């Protein structure tokens, strides 16, 4: 298609305290793809996702995300991406509802959108008023997803989205992602649950040693 690719990285090198977590990685992702990142522990998946979100700077190489340069055009990039990392980015002292309201209002989302997202992830009812510290691992993850849904991003970056979620929540997440893609979004997710992710993804990119070592449908 005519429009710029969702992600275009050339010779991307990213350092984590002097260690090259990405060692000259090249990757192109077109809009509307669901790319799953696989690879051994420490391959560089998380780092790659953080680079795409403009969180980790490139030490060398160039990168375009949603048409803007991730070094110079961070602001634009951020306006277009949403991310669920290993950590959930929640405030322990606040309740589920308060967390969603906070992030929702920061993004400028409406009350109804927030409420819809919560019921999608089964957080309405009792849980909505439980302080996040009291949540179980999976319930925290669900909350993070609810926030992501509210975000309505153009590029979704998911670091092991299924980890910690129970089967019903997993199906729900997959459903949400499919819908998002249907409405024009692009998805990059890292996963160690190959068969599950493979059902979902349109393309599998395998990382190792900070570079792409395998790329296929």
């Amino acid at each position, binding site marked *: 298609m005519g429009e710029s690719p969702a992600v275009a990285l050339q010779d991307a090198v990213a*350092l984590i305290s002097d260690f*090259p977590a990405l*060692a*000259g990685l090249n990757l192109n992702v077109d809009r509307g793809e669901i790319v799953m990142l696989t690879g*051994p522990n420490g*391959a560089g998946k998380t780092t790659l996702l953080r680079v795409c979100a403009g969180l980790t*700077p490139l*030490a060398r190489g160039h990168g375009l995300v949603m048409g803007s340069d991730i070094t110079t055009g961070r602001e634009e990039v951020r306006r277009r991406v949403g991310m669920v990392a290993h950590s959930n980015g929640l405030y322990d002292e606040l309740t589920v509802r308060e967390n969603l309201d906070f992030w929702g209002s920061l993004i400028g989302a409406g009350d109804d959108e927030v409420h819809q997202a919560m019921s999608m992830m089964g957080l309405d009812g009792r849980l909505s008023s439980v302080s996040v510290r009291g949540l179980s691992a999976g319930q925290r993850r669900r909350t993070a997803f609810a926030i992501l849904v509210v975000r309505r991003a153009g590029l979704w970056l998911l670091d092991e989205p299924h980890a910690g979620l129970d089967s019903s929540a997993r199906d729900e997440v997959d459903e949400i992602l499919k819908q998002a893609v249907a409405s024009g979004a692009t998805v990059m997710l890292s996963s160690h649950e190959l068969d599950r992710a493979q059902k979902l993804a349109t393309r599998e990119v395998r990382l*190792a040693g900070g570079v792409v070592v395998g790329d296929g449908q």
Partner: protein
Amino acid sequence: MTIDTPTSTTAPTRGTSTPATRVLGILTIAMTLWLGVFGLLLSPADRDQGDAVRIMYVHVPSVWLAYLAFIVTALASGVHLFGKRHSLQADRVAGASAEIGVVFMAVTLVTGMLWGRITWGVYWQWDARLTTTALLFISYVGYLAVRGLEGSREQRARRSAIVGLLAVLEVPLVHWSVKLWRSLHQEATVLGTDLDVSLDGLMLFSLFVGVVAFTLLFLWLLLHRSRMLTMIDISADSGLDTALAQRRAEGGASI
């Protein structure tokens, strides 16, 4: 990551000196000798301070050059932060200048304390100038610490540039501390001695020589040090290349 336009002289193989800096170095040495002659021999002892006054020829120039160094740091930081190219060269100049400034500041403190011991009888006393000077010194130690933090060069540059721009605000505070506290603080500050050095012509000239000598020294150090930093960055880059090779190798036999 690119080292922006390192001059040919900064190739790791060659040293950091150029004909220009060699001349500068020679001049510096000459002026320093001259300062020795004037400061120690030709200039008279002070009426009520005796030979102790000669400390002034080091004390005062070193302070002023420290000020200059910190201002240069601030300017370079500004160039990096607000300049189009976010020049890393500017950042390195800022860093080098700050390092030199800290050294000069230390010299000021030491000479000042010695002088204080002689004239006031104590090494230290808690008046505005001394305190603010000490704090200024601490701030720039902090600045250097920020430069030492982990992270990419851009990060280092951005952080330290901001700190450099904020810290320089203390220089006027030190400079006018006497006035400030005189006018603001009821008790007359003990700084009387600090200023009633009656400078006759020769003293003034010696002081002038001192300032010139220290200025040359500053420039000379600045050139060398900033080129040094450039070379460090370059060698760090070549180090990165090997690290990258190893990292990619992990791909083959990864854990």
